[in-house]
């Protein structure tokens, strides 16, 4: 299905809904529910929870959502009304155009989601090549008309962030030639076997014997996978705080991951 945006192995994203369209699309497409089977109250709750996760109330998001919620309530209530009392034709037409507008916006939103995924893909391909950017060598430096031309304080700041943020440490890492010894699927299966006995464990304790960062990432992905399946609860009291993992599933329910290969780094 075209809407399934494939995500890279590291693209672990918690479902943070970027607004009402996102949430609706999620509810409709991923859960494949008929919105009429969903209590509007549930949607409101879900959305309020999202708003809660934002640092402050974003009025625009909130009002946009109210509008959509109102439309849904209207659509829904019109369905509940007995047929014998038909709506005024104007009202019904208005209802349709509301509905169409909503549908149109959802489609547009979905279209740009797909376009964004394509852009990301193109960037990933282009990212395999690195441009030469070294400029003229010393012999020509004296000819450069104005050395700081067009460079302002903000460019200095940007350069600093670039210099400090995006570079791997200077050590020579051979991860790119070494196979990662474990896969997400293996670790997930392993955790399903171990966690019911342990019950509750910190992520740090769980991974302290691992030799490389990449293995830790694999463990992290495995925990996320289990979280997604509702087999563990994960809590973290503060940003960068201890991540506590609590087993909450039934090991018998576990179906091994299919098609998840070792992280290919």
């Amino acid at each position, binding site marked *: 299905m075209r809407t399934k945006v494939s995500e890279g192995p590291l693209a672990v994203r918690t479902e943070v809904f970027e607004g009402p*369209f996102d949430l609706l699309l999620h509810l409709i497409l991923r859960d494949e529910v*008929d919105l009429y089977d969903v209590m509007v109250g549930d949607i409101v709750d879900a959305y309020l929870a999202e708003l809660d996760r934002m640092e402050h109330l*974003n009025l625009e998001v909130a009002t946009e959502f109210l509008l959509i919620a109102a439309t849904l309530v209207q659509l829904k209530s019109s369905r509940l009304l007995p047929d014998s009392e038909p709506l005024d034709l104007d009202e019904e037409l208005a209802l349709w155009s509301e509905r169409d507008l909503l549908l149109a916006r959802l*489609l547009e939103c979905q279209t740009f989601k797909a376009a964004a995924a394509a852009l990301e893909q193109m960037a990933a391909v282009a990212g395999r090549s*690195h441009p*030469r950017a070294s400029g003229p060598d010393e012999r020509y430096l004296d000819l450069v008309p104005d050395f700081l031309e067009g460079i302002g304080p903000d460019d200095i700041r940007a350069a600093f962030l670039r210099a400090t943020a995006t570079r791997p440490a200077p050590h020579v890492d051979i991860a790119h030639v070494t196979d990662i010894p474990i896969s997400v699927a293996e670790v997930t299966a392993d955790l399903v076997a171990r966690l019911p006995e342990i019950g509750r464990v910190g992520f740090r304790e769980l991974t302290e014997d691992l030799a490389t960062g990449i293995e830790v990432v694999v463990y992290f992905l495995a925990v996320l996978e289990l979280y997604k399946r509702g087999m563990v609860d994960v809590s973290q009291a503060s940003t960068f705080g201890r991540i506590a993992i609590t087993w909450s599933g039934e090991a018998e329910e576990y179906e091994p991951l299919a098609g998840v290969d070792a992280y290919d780094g």
Partner: protein
Amino acid sequence: MTDENREARQAVEAIVMVADEPVPPGLMAQLIEISTDQVEEICTQLAEEYRSEVRGFELVRVAGGYRFRSHPDAEPYVKRFVVSGQSARLSSAALETLAIVAYKQPLSRAQVSAIRGVNAEGAMRTLQQRGLVCEVGRDPGPGNARLFATTSAFLERLGLDAIDELPPLVDFVPGPEVIEALETSLMADGRSGLSGADGRDGAGQGQDHGVPTPAPERGRGNGDAPAV
């Protein structure tokens, strides 16, 4: 090869080698005093030579000019070495915003927000900081909203020569099954048609393809809109 040809070729290679941005062929033509067509021809030849010699670099046309860059095949070795230009990945919010700007440019923040249904302030700021989007002017209409467009850094990041090389937006319009799912979900069961108005009885929701289909671009169409 004539001496003149050789000299022009050498000049092109030398200039692109000392440049830190794509060099427009028109500029090279001016500096070398040959025609732009000749520059283009030389660059095409050179690129082909490097390819056939299995060089570790390539000469590419990107963002309106020519530049050297490492060959993708050498990526495993270069990855650990690159000194700058390794770009952090963008969040999905930023990517979606970027896609909207790329396809609808120039446009205002409010227009971006309208499409995404959320305030685009933050994502736009991120994109500006990354140099992928910049302000290009003011809307002549009421409000004089600031208008934004993608930059040449954006083109480079995507490996494009020009913005019209982007795949057409219509390619990304959701397939019929998605549209159907959305329609079904939004349709009033049992009352779906405008019963009485056009005789549609609204039974078979989901199969009811006759519903008034929306025009997603309503009110802001510019031709490359998704057709439904």
